[in-house]
């Protein structure tokens, strides 16, 4: 195979050293190359010849239609965000590089039908450092946290933990691919903040307010209300201000690891200082 002479990253995503060309058929257009630099390319202008626009109406502009007529999104593997990979690994405590794409997680995932990327695809995207694709995917929001994937992973990766970490990151970056999911979480936590406990009727009311889906599950009301299974008034606890304070402190960022680490270091310093004084 002759080198094509293009510099940058090769198909596997690893950087080719300066002046060392990647290997490609001579004369062919550089397939996934981005002439401008290393950022991911998603435009048709840079698409290789076999990538055609999907005939079906789908969310992705650029798709690779296979011979069988299935469409696949083309993900360009240049522009790996290493900081993103590190952040996911730190937050979840997992080594994503251990995933070898066996697909067991996807096979067992109950929510796969609703995902845009399957679980194993999300794992691959994380390995490739595709921050934008991962954080704006529906999959990270729709994960039911049932832990089937973590249980069945042959490399003992806590896949559900990785999904959770990505969802937390998406929330911090204000990327809400599934708005209803965010509304539900907000409604739930607001109810806990007001009452100290979750209150189903209150959660539903807040959820309807946040989403505008006014008739969500109202047909269930006649089945539960007469039996006293859905009290209209919340059970408020005495320490609800304490619970609200926990949530407020969280929102103020008092539990940020950097902040807490700095405080711990300061405390340790003060203590050792005291110890020295006592000795002297």
């Amino acid at each position, binding site marked *: 195979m002759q080198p094509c002479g293009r510099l940058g990253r090769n198909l596997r995503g690893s950087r080719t050293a300066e002046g060392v060309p990647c290997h490609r058929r001579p004369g062919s257009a550089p397939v996934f190359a981005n002439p401008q630099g290393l950022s991911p390319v998603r435009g048709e202008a840079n698409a290789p010849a076999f990538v055609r626009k999907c005939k079906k109406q789908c969310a992705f502009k650029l798709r690779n239609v296979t011979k069988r007529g299935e469409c696949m999104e083309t993900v360009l593997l240049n522009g790996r965000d290493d900081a993103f990979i590190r952040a996911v690994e730190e937050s979840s405590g997992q080594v994503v590089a251990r995933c070898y794409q066996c697909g067991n997680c996807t096979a067992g995932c109950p929510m796969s039908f609703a995902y845009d990327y399957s679980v194993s695809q999300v794992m691959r995207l994380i390995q490739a450092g595709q921050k934008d694709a991962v954080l704006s995917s529906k999959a990270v929001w729709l994960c039911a946290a*049932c832990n089937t994937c973590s249980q069945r992973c042959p490399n003992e990766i806590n896949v559900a933990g990785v999904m*959770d970490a990505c969802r937390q990151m998406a929330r911090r970056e204000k990327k809400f691919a599934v708005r209803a999911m965010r509304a539900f979480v907000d409604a739930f936590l607001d109810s806990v903040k007001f009452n100290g406990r979750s209150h189903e009727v209150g959660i539903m009311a807040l959820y309807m307010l946040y989403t505008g889906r006014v008739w969500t599950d109202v047909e269930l009301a006649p089945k539960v209300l007469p039996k006293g299974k859905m009290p209209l008034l919340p059970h408020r*606890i*005495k320490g609800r201000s304490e619970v609200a304070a926990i949530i407020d402190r969280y929102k103020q960022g008092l*539990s940020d690891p950097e902040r807490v680490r700095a405080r*711990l270091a300061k405390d340790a310093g003060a203590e050792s200082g005291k110890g020295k004084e006592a000795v002297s």
Partner: protein
Amino acid sequence: MSKATFGYFPGCSGLGTSLEYERSTRAVCRELGLTLWDIPDWNCCGSTPAHTVDPVLSSALSARVFAQGETAGIRDVVTPCPSCLSNLRNALEHMEDELFAARVEALTERPLEAGHSVKSVLQVIVEDIGLDKVKERVRRPLVGLRAVPYYGCLMTRPEKIMRFDDPENPQSLDLLLQALGAEVLPFPLKVDCCGGSLGIPVRESVPRLSGRILELAGELGADVIVVACPLCQMNLDLRQGQIRAKGLDYTVPVPYFTQLMAYAFGLGDEEAAFKLLAEDISPAFSCMQRRAGEIKAEEARVAALAAQKAAAKAGRTGSGQSQAKSAGAAGGEA
């Protein structure tokens, strides 16, 4: 604190949608000699939404529950709800990390002592009390009831944190139901997801996932699906009408295991609280009684046959023939 005394964390749904679980759990524990001390002024554990936002927030809410327990001298907590259990257990596991514990404390501002534990009511009944003791208490055995057990996702997973039963094919609920006298059918979907709280934001999920569970239970000919999780119960029972509207052909009542225990222990309707279920359970019980009658008749027939044979044998040996000869005669007859 003796082994039979636990701090009790009912969980928010115990005051609302899982009232029947709450009532029957308390009654069954009383019957088994378990003393439950309510944790004073407990708060919500944050359920799935809290750990969706941040595990530190989730653990801080759980840490307040443990701190409240400490004020009443409670160290060992039981909870009927697997979602609460998962959050409380995860909090304890994560807080073994020093930095994580410090982050939690920055939110709660209440330092927590060591030595807390949390278990599910099912685990305490199966492991601490034991099925022999449960068997002793049964006054109305559930003979003839065809049950499938449904554990849900969180009771046994993740394996390293829950440390209870088999993560893919748990047996505790199966054995418990057998101890109550029921016929337990093997159920391949016993740990599959019911859709959880996604039923509200993603309407399609519950008819699809819970629908699969209900359909298989119906096809296996189960009278009841026995559950241990308030959220699973709500999806399978309360939303069954919604699922039927989407093409499910079966009606399967979905009681909690504690309700069946209360019934088997001979407790009253108030404790078993079957009336609070959305799907009526009485057809299941009439099936059970009919089948129990058939089983009894079959047993009587077999017993009568055995008695007849024994009588015939006794008659032959009684007529003065030697034992060897009678055996030979019996062989000849055959």
